[in-house]
């Protein structure tokens, strides 16, 4: 029962961590589900946010401002991906890979080295309360409130006249255009906001863990996708609210699962294989159920 004790001991830490990753999972969900724009930019935007925030904190910039700049940098990255797709007709996934790859070099340039320790600088947690970062009875509600605001914000937005228009762009671009909606604005803005969320998650994480690292994005996309799929399996995606809650709930469940598997003795190096296999099975399930694997396209996505 040793493993159980070590797992239980880690529950609060994992929970706080998963609430931070919920930002990234939401940033993955928005383009993928709402805009039908499968996007890989998060893998670069997440460390971008971390690096920008880390560097700014290390030169004494106010944490709130540092996080705002980090989110804006993520926004620019997402806009770039969307623009590359729209302007040059490059497949959305490839556009995302291009931007993400270029971001790796940019992130290194921004930091000037591969990691920065941030223990000795002010951060958003210590700014609010000296113990906020280490007292999980405060940290978890704080992070939950942050992601809650994001979910509520989107829930409100998608009910507005503008928001319904944005959803139409994902549901049927040709129809949306014929109804007077500017597809470029909606797509560029939407993918931009999504990447801003990922970058914001990165900025939160570096402050929570006390260091920024250019490699911190490695595998974040597949983790976020796994979280999203778990969340959708649990609460569905039949309404806007469910679709918005799915990545948050999914992230919380997914990281507990991971922590549990690690406590059980799964070598961390096998984690990516396990996660990848899990996502693959979940994505393949609908086609397998129909009995004609590969013959049907489960998702209608933009080319």
């Amino acid at each position, binding site marked *: 029962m040793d493993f159980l004790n070590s797992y239980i001991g880690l529950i609060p830490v994992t929970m706080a961590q998963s609430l931070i990753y919920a930002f990234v999972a939401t940033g993955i969900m928005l383009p993928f589900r709402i805009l039908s724009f499968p996007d890989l930019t998060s893998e670069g935007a997440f460390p971008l946010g971390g690096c920008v925030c880390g560097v700014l904190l290390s030169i004494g910039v106010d944490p709130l401002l540092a996080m705002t700049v980090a989110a804006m940098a993520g926004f620019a990255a997402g806009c770039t991906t969307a623009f590359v797709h729209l302007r040059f007709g490059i497949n959305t996934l490839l556009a995302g890979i291009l931007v993400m790859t270029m971001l790796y070099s940019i992130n290194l340039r921004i930091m000037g080295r591969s990691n920065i320790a941030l223990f000795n600088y002010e951060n958003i947690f210590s700014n609010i309360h000296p113990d906020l970062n280490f007292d999980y009875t405060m940290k978890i509600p704080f992070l939950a409130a942050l992601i809650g605001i994001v979910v509520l914000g989107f829930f409100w937005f998608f009910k507005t*006249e503008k*928001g319904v228009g944005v959803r139409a762009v994902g*549901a*049927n671009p*040709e129809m949306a*255009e014929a*109804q*007077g909606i500017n597809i470029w604005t909606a797509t560029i803005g939407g993918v931009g906001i999504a990447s801003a969320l990922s970058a914001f998650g990165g900025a939160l994480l570096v402050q929570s863990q006390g260091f920024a690292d250019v490699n911190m994005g490695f595998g974040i996309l597949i983790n976020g996708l796994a979280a999203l799929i778990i969340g959708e399996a649990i609460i569905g995606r039949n309404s806007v609210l469910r679709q918005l809650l799915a990545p948050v709930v999914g992230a919380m469940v997914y990281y507990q699962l991971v922590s549990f598997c690690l406590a059980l003795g799964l070598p961390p190096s096998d984690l990516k294989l396990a996660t990848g296999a899990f996502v693959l099975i979940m994505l393949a399930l609908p086609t397998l159920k129909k009995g004609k694997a590969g013959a049907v396209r489960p998702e209608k996505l933009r080319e």
Partner: protein
Amino acid sequence: MLSIKQLCKTFYPGTPDEKTALDHVDLELDTGSFCVVIGSNGAGKSTLLNAISGKLPVDGGTIALDGEDIGPLPVHQRARLLARVFQDPMIGTAPGMSIEENLLLAELRASRRSLKFGLTAARRRLFRDRLALLGLGLEDRLDARVELLSGGQRQALSLIMAVSTNPRLLLLDEHTAALDPRTAGLVMEATVRAVAEFGLTTLMVTHNMHHAIEYGDRLIMMEAGRIKLGLGAEEKRGLTVEELVARFQIADDKILLSD
């Protein structure tokens, strides 16, 4: 008033596949006029409508609506002035969204979308009344997803979406062709009613000769990218399918056989 001058469109120019779809087309359509367009397959009817809606960039010529040159405007800006119903019921609606959300999208076609709550109680009442006119029972399913509707129901919804904002020009491209005869009749009736009620300037493409005779106050035929012949309201009255075929020397079996 729609005024088209010397509109040209050639696909794959300078290649062996070169195809002139619009050959210096001139067309004047008075406000409130309901013009039916016929012509054999590949005559350029859809190309003409796509050029007007902005879907297809043209090689030359001008398109003006009520004196405003709409040629330079992208599709989403022309949508402020014109509405269209496509032949394929799947194109005209957003499948994953509800009936009322689809109607809301159309409702705001001509206006700026604000950050105000979209589906207000007043709007939902309005949508319910509009759908009730169709007699398909859609008014009781406002929150149902459009993907659950049949092709005919979706097309009827597309039509309501197109006409209800009182566009300055309505483009219909064989919008009943994919439907069974009963639903086609229903959608056609709803079309005529709306066009008359709002006095919409309409351009309707059809392969159905009976529809071509029965509806509209003007009839034009396209052939090889040109408007070959036109009939006004006077000449249209009392026209029979046989006369029409003889008049236009229609050599298209598909048209002759259609009912």
